[in-house]
């Protein structure tokens, strides 16, 4: 398929009946680039499911805030506008994510926790934002799965049969991969620029101009979680580490060992906290 045509189709994905209603409502709010924290707060509070999910998420081990967070406003102040927009997107596509690929949610949560651990260890100033970007880095897979459900299921089967990476299977079929689809859609939907850039370059972090450190962290978190074998991201192989990302983040053997240990403990807690409805 022609790439431009594919992009147009993907950018119109919000018109599909299979797209969650809550996501459509969210897009109506996010559309305005000047949307205030107050408006976002009102929007969240107007929806019971959204409120519950947001509170569950900020209280989960993905973030590890000390003490309990009881209100949406409290969550917004701790997270900031950019992180909240990303978090809203992730809770709105949660069900679609589980349907697209069994294990993708677990993979994404694993990346979010690992990314936060790396960010904190390296003294990065906004660990929540990195963590949200990690949670959403594979949104392109969900988007391709929503737009082309049968084809995407077959791509997962093809990747397994041919022993190739899922992004290779995607490229063979669509000429583009999920990182492209993820960039297109988050850009179209006016999500924060930093988030769009991390999603776009999570396989090629050395190309990120504005957020090279965030992108490198998410890239490495993705690889660590795949190496650990937690969740499922579309294939059973560990991708190679990008040289410059590795040098940017500069983790020692002890760092990696401790990140793996700390993440291990948090993973199961996160599952329990987030998934029980």
């Amino acid at each position: 398929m022609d790439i431009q045509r594919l992009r147009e189709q993907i950018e119109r994905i919000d018109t599909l009946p299979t797209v969650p209603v809550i996501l459509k409502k969210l897009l109506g709010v996010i559309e305005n680039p000047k949307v205030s924290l107050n408006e976002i707060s009102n929007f969240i509070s107007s929806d019971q499911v959204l409120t519950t999910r947001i509170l569950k998420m900020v209280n989960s081990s993905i973030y590890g805030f000390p003490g309990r967070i009881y209100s949406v406003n409290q969550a917004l102040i701790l997270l900031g506008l950019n992180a909240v927009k990303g978090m809203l997107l992730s809770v709105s596509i949660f069900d679609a994510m589980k349907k697209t690929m069994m294990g993708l949610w677990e993979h994404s949560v694993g990346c979010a926790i690992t990314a936060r651990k790396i960010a904190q260890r390296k003294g990065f100033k906004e660990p929540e934002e990195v963590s949200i970007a990690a949670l959403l880095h594979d949104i392109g897979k969900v988007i391709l799965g929503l737009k082309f459900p049968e084809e995407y299921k077959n791509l997962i089967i093809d990747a397994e049969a041919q022993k190739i990476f899922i992004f290779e299977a995607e490229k063979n079929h669509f000429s583009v991969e999920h990182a492209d689809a993820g960039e297109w859609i988050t850009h179209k939907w006016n999500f924060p620029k930093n988030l769009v850039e991390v999603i776009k370059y999570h396989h090629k972090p050395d190309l990120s101009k504005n957020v090279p450190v965030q992108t490198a962290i998410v890239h490495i978190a993705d690889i660590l979680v795949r190496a650990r074998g937690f969740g499922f991201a579309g294939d059973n192989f560990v991708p190679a580490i990008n040289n410059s990302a590795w040098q940017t983040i500069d983790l020692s053997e002890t760092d990696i060992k401790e990140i793996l240990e700390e993440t291990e403990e948090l993973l199961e807690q996160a599952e329990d906290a987030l998934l029980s409805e």
Partner: protein
Amino acid sequence: MNNIIKEISLPKILVDIDSLSPGMKLVKPVVNKAGMILLGEGTLITGVIIERLNSMGVNNVYIEGPSKPQKTIEEVMLEIDERFRKTENEPYMYLLKRLIKKHIEGLYNK
């Protein structure tokens, strides 16, 4: 689908009611919004139970994952070798593989 989810290492997995089938086993109780237990842990799923869960508006439940009974450490190590097969000669990947193996060994020796 089973071969696709085999990499999930936790024995617990969450499934949608749509993908639930008879013979699966609950690993966590199903609780309604009021906190009342509808089905206890260990309940074996049947067609009738799926219908009832559906009618009560339950969206998803935890079932026993495919990795139970737990894999032996040798099996897990072979899986790690397989996962790294394509990239282990790339920079840092051998180091990463060694650290992952050490980490997994640590989990088994706990």
